[in-house]
């Protein structure tokens, strides 16, 4: 074990002994996300660098503190990308933070989520034990899938040290089309497209306009564009990265922003405020002053959940409350991985 990991492990053991919580932190680009965690800052950005990247194996392995931008640049150099189009929310974003937050960008509905691309990881648990799960191969069912459990657990189960991810080739051609359309019709159209063999890799409805991105072989993109119609959007890459990183005008201001993850066919929400729709209808961003209870009721009734993504003065918990039997399992899983409860207490749920 190298000296930095040894140092991390010692810090965790000392914290465990004294029951003094640690607030794990990468680049700090997602400090706003989730509930405030108690504890002393535990900086992991020093553990950085790409360990292994074999483009023909479609696998990249890097240390958790590696800047996401560095990983994406290396992959671009070989005509590859991270298929889940991870949000950065700032230049300091790291791989570890990306996986701990488990957020995915516009390509999610077409290509899969962060956890779908995680093949394996190395981590330190709440006892400071160095553990490896999964691996660097596409298919692996030996042992429980701890790597995917870690994805999106917001650092509450352990400190991620290294991650192996599946890579995807960059599309040969990409084209974004747009047209003016009311939201409900746009959502219907998004679902209709998803039911046909079309190379749609992102959809968005905002400010009365529908945007759709097509990716693949040049000929396929052209043929699909003819079928779908609409105007070609110039600077489309800029538009999608604005949606991904919330630089789009829709996200301006400092009021609350809700993230509703629902069945893609969920009807209109019936809540006042502004909306942006993504993921073929399965993701709805909502700027509203409605109280948390009403937003969460609507989300639950539509088969999903609501995250208070940007607090904007709201005092509710960031994440949708869980039914008790499920919350009990969460507490037990937390107990199994971090028995002294030192990692990011309160960041996910106040119970742990």
């Amino acid at each position, binding site marked *: 074990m190298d000296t930095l990991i040894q140092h991390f492990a010692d810090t965790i053991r000392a914290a465990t002994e004294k029951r003094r919580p640690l607030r794990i932190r990468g680049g700090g680009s997602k400090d706003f996300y989730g509930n405030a965690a108690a504890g002393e800052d535990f900086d992991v950005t020093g553990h950085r660098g790409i360990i292994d990247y074999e483009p*023909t*194996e479609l*696998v990249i392995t890097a240390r958790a503190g590696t800047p996401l931008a560095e990983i994406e640049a290396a992959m671009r150099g070989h*005509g590859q990308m991270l298929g889940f189009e991870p949000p950065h929310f700032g230049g300091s974003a790291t791989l570890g933070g990306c996986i701990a937050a*488990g957020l995915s960008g516009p390509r999610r509905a077409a290509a899969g*989520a962060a*956890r*779908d691309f995680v093949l394996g990881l190395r981590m330190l648990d709440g006892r400071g*034990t160095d*553990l*490896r*799960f999964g*691996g660097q*191969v*596409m*298919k*692996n*069912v*030996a*042992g*429980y*899938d*701890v790597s995917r*459990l870690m*994805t*999106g657990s917001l650092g509450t*189960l352990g400190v991620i040290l290294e991650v192996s991810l599946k890579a995807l080739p*960059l599309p040969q051609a990409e084209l974004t089309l747009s047209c003016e359309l009311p939201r409900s019709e746009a959502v219907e159209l998004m*679902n209709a497209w*998803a*039911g046909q*063999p079309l*190379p749609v890799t992102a959809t968005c409805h905002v400010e009365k306009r529908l945007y759709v991105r097509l990716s*693949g*072989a*040049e*000929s*396929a993109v*052209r*043929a*699909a564009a003819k079928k779908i119609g609409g105007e070609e959007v110039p600077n489309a890459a800029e538009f999608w990265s604005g949606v991904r990183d919330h630089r789009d005008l829709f996200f301006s201001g400092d009021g609350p922003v809700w993230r509703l*993850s629902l*069945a893609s*066919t969920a009807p209109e929400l019936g809540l006042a405020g502004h909306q942006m729709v993504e*993921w073929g209808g399965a*993701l709805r961003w909502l700027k509203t002053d409605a109280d948390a209870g009403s937003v969460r009721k609507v989300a639950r009734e539509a*088969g999903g*959940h609501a995250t208070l993504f940007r607090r904007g003065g709201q005092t509710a918990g960031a*994440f*949708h*409350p869980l*039914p008790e*039997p*499920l919350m009990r*399992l*969460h507490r*037990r899983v937390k107990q*199994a*991985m971090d028995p002294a409860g030192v990692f990011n207490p309160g960041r996910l*749920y106040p119970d742990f």
Partner: protein
Amino acid sequence: MPVDLERQRAVCAALRAFMPARNVLFEREDVTPYECDGLSAYRQPPMVVALPENESQVCEILETCHAMRVPVVARGAGTGLSGGALPLGNGVLLSLAKLKNILAIDAPARTARVQPGVRNLAISEAAAPHGLYYAPDPSSQIACSIGGNVAENSGGVHCLKYGLTVHNILKLRVATIEGEIVELGGGGLDAAGYDLMALLTGSEGLLGVVTEITVKLLPRPECAQVVLAAFDDVGAAGEAVANVIAAGIIPAGMEMMDQPATLAVEPFVNAGYPTDAAGILLCESDGTREEVADEIARIEKIMQDSGAHLVRVSRDEAERLKFWAGRKAAFPAVGRLSPDYYCMDGTIPRRRLAEVLRGIAAMEKNYGLRCANVFHAGDGNLHPLILYDANDPGQLQRAELFGAEILKLCIDVGGTITGEHGVGVEKIDSMCVQFGAAELEALHALKRAFDEHELLNPGKAVPTLHRCAEFGRMHVHSGAEKFPELPRF
């Protein structure tokens, strides 16, 4: 182990309190059909078989077994290849076979809500009128159940492009050992809290019993075509696979068969495979017409440039299916060559393929047994089929040692002991080679978070440290003892 008759009577009586007597089996002739799954080398009749007809009975069975501290082994269609559904002589075998309804197909949302006993292929058949299908297609798809697919995280020939079971499910209803229902995942593409759905998928029935699954359906691709390429050297075939990936192509399927496999298959199905080749590749493209035309032309050229001595493109759907028929019949065809065969399931980094195949060839000589290799080349999942005759004393044991050595080689080159068949009872000792004591302890801690008294499928998937210590005396890894901290005996 003789059946504890008093215990058996007590368990049957407790189950009959809420289930019809016809669904609680205990007579020897009634429980014997459940004594093994697809790995028939391991057999053990269960003490009791319970056949619930609905979710609430599943919950009551689990609650009862939990209260009485009776171990429970869940079983789907029983097609598993690692003995994951091998019963316990002192336990209840919980068959989900009667939960076989497709509850709803939501065509606009492209989802199907099904019970665990529904056959994998039945989902695609039910979705077909809507132009949709369920993507994961394990070879056993006509028989295997979706509940079993979730337990094993099953793949199939198309999983490089379309993913495994974990990538194609949206929501699970799971009964805990206490008999409570929890819902994991949801109607959207993610859920609040930990991703327990991913953790449950592939957990081999050790964490909970799945009672309902909502799967994602995909639009049927407009068309598909396959390229058949033959190579004089399996190393060159492996190189061709890397070249396809390097060109930015993710084929819908990419399969390799070595010469022993094609020699077995060709007389059986006349798929048109050149049997003089050291190895053949099948590389499929699917999507829109334009996409497929473009991709097939590029694949064809890459195969030629990579040294294929023969490249053929399927001219029509009939020929495409004929090319695939050989691959799909590989296991039964090999089965005709030998009274028995033993199918292995390691995954390796693709670039190590030639080396691994050379290693296997050397082992064939050492163990005096033949081996044919079928390979999901796109994702590195190797299925060596070891031929043996169970009636010849010692051959099964030799086949098992041969298999274990192949798995060790897979680990040594940076791979894993199981890509899609699961650990079950079969590969439990190889888990000691792949994982260290700390990881195994962490896995046990997770198990206890779901099942404190270790009643769900105990003894499978994750070996005890005690077992590894015993096993470790036989297999010393890289000259170092794997579990030095454990007492020896």
